[in-house]
């Protein structure tokens, strides 16, 4: 059981949740994730850790309402308990001084990107961050990103904030302007696919953090498997970060859709029940 200590909405469907989880807070490094489960009948879902405070013993998650479990999580208030939280899981990001690092985040992928941006900056790199969202109100963590980035470029699909266009446009602008030594991309699979194609054109080493379906999160079930460099890898123990140029994003997208119909039906049913209760 982990108590919710703080909760703050970034937009209608995205909120930051601060959990009381002292052991995880102490052990966690950038790139790590947790698995959470709500209630006895809940499912286990992975969520990447956005930040932690080892002294206060807290872990911060940024959650977007997309289905039953994320909705249940955001329905909890400060003082409520999350039934199960386990972690930190996965391999930590390999942070070193490489020169200039181009970080690109899309949607709630910006949250797990934050500790990586911070890490690379503190390791002495020049860090340029591209944040992409559909429109202005979905841009999150801009202030925090500015704190650790030499430059922040905002891209929105509808042009309501920053520049109009996709994340790749902002990335290319930087790449054409200056030498980039490493790129890290986190966001929806489709965004990471095209971001990886962009950096591949310029031969820039790129890491992507994959957010696949998981059950146990400890290497036991294989639900998270995806082909990387022609070999099947388990995102939970081999990842979540991989060489983005080797990831088979089309396979990952296909596997993410495995339960699409069931998930949609379950969410509709959940929303209906919620309405009746309310």
């Amino acid at each position, binding site marked *: 059981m982990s108590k919710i200590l703080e909760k703050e909405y970034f937009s209608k469907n995205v909120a930051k949740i601060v959990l009381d989880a002292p052991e995880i807070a102490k052990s966690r490094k950038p790139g790590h994730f947790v698995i959470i489960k709500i209630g006895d009948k809940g499912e286990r879902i992975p969520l990447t850790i956005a930040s932690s405070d080892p002294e206060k013993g807290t872990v911060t998650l940024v959650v977007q309402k997309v289905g039953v479990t994320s909705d249940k999580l955001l329905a909890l208030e400060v003082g409520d308990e999350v039934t199960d939280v386990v972690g930190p899981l996965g391999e930590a990001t390999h942070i070193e001084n490489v020169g200039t690092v181009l970080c690109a985040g899309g949607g709630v992928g910006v949250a797990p990107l934050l500790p990586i941006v911070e890490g690379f900056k503190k390791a002495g790199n020049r860090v340029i961050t591209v944040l992409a969202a559909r429109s202005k109100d979905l841009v999150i963590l801009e202030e925090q990103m500015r704190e650790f980035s030499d430059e922040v470029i905002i891209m929105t699909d509808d042009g309501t904030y920053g520049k109009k266009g996709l994340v790749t446009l902002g990335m290319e602008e930087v790449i054409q302007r200056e030498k980039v030594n490493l790129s890290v991309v986190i966001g929806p699979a489709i965004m990471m696919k095209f971001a990886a194609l962009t950096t591949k054109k310029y031969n820039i080493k790129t890491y992507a953090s994959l957010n696949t379906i998981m059950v146990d999160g400890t290497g036991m079930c294989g639900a998270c498997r995806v082909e990387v460099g022609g070999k099947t890898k388990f995102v939970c123990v081999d990842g979540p970060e991989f060489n983005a140029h080797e990831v088979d994003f089309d396979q990952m997208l296909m596997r993410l859709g*495995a339960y699409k119909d069931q998930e949609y039906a379950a969410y509709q049913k959940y929303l209906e029940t919620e309405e009746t209760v309310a």
Partner: protein
Amino acid sequence: MENIAEYLKAERSQEWRDEVRKSMKTKLRLEKVRVQMSEEDPNVRNTNNIEVNTGLSVEEAVLEAQRCIDCPTPTCMTGCPVGINIPKFVKKIETEDFLGAAAVLKDTNGLPAVCGRVCPQEKQCEAQCFYTIKLGKPAVAIGHLERFAADFEQKSGQIAIPEVAKSNKIKLGVVGSGPAGLAASGDLAKFGYDVTVFEALHEIGGVLKYGIPEFRLPNDVVDVEIESLKQMGVKFRTNFIVGKTASFEDLKEDGFKAFFVGSGAGLPRFMNIPGENYNGIFSSNEYLTRVNLMNAANPEYDTPVHSGKLVAVIGGGNTAMDSVRTAKRLGADRSMIIYRRSEAEMPARLEEVKHAKEEGIEFMNLHNPLEYYADDKGMVKSMKVQKMELGEPDSSGRRRPIAIEGSEFILEVDTVVVSVGVSPNPIVPAALPKLEITDWGTIVVDKDTMQSTTIPEIFAGGDIVRGGATVILAMGDGRKAAAGMHKYIQEKIKAN
């Protein structure tokens, strides 16, 4: 060994044992026919989760116990990985002292109700029974009797909690709450240690909960055994991954003096054939975890599972049988085993194969998958299968399957469960770089004490050492390791 022989002799010559032996002529005992375990109707049980074996009645158990002739040298015991005093518990049943029988079981086995259900007795105790080796007749039904005594105790409400030595306040950690960890923690608690079991999942029990289905091992049965351990003072922490949530160093700073690692099977193996990552193709670990641990088949639970009408399960072990029978229960029209060798080579328990056949499982033995095909959404729709024949024995002693060229055909499927084994869990070896591991990723230990060859305070057993084993072998390891840890700690105390 001599000590054990003498101890058994002394036990056997106790007055009550003499009386029981004399109460019936051996000839009469030998004439009796082995009891048949009654079972739920196959065509009813394959639609629900009710336990298949219903258990022996009191009368049946006593009659079966009478078959045992209480041999002077009980060879059956040589087949038991945890060294249960088999004739003693069987004779307790004959005298209708069922709680006494359960107590004998619990002397050496913390989970008798589990073992009575899932042990491959036909390869262990019953394979070494006098009836089997000398008479060529069906063995005394030791497994059924074990389950009977354990169930009797569970239902009696008078569950005996094993005696625990006075607390020595020495903290020991157990990594993993599967059969190896539970067995180790029970013995360590008896020695008086302050034992904490760390479990990665949200439930205690490891493979007994996520792997073995309810129809073969009800969760309630496991929970009663876990409750006994709690009563003995064993502490449990769920959602705690040693090596991740906290390091071994962190725990040592926290006062833990030694660890038993029973972290079990990790990465499921796949065959690395084309199309294996299509949707609808699972490892047996994933399929069974969704259904058993997460209750995915129950619409009240949030976890989904894809279980179709045409299900192929690849493999011939117990996990394959569990998966294929689960698929049937979830409504499959065809539940098929695809196994590359013949039935004679199947590693599954005989009883599981028998039950599977009764329930309408199709066995496509001597068949091997080559490739999977999917629809435009990436959902598996068919597979290419090749027929096999048996050649010369291979390194495992089993006849090697050889592909028959030109025998390939397409089989329509909508769900595939790959059950061809697992590799050891990588988390503990990754957290302890100094730990000696094999090329397979298993931890290298001394086979008598189960102590790591390179880190003295680490002991290990079960699948993390064996690669893939049975519940009872894991428990045997846990018990050996507990003895090894006790010796290690006591020697350290003396040295200081």
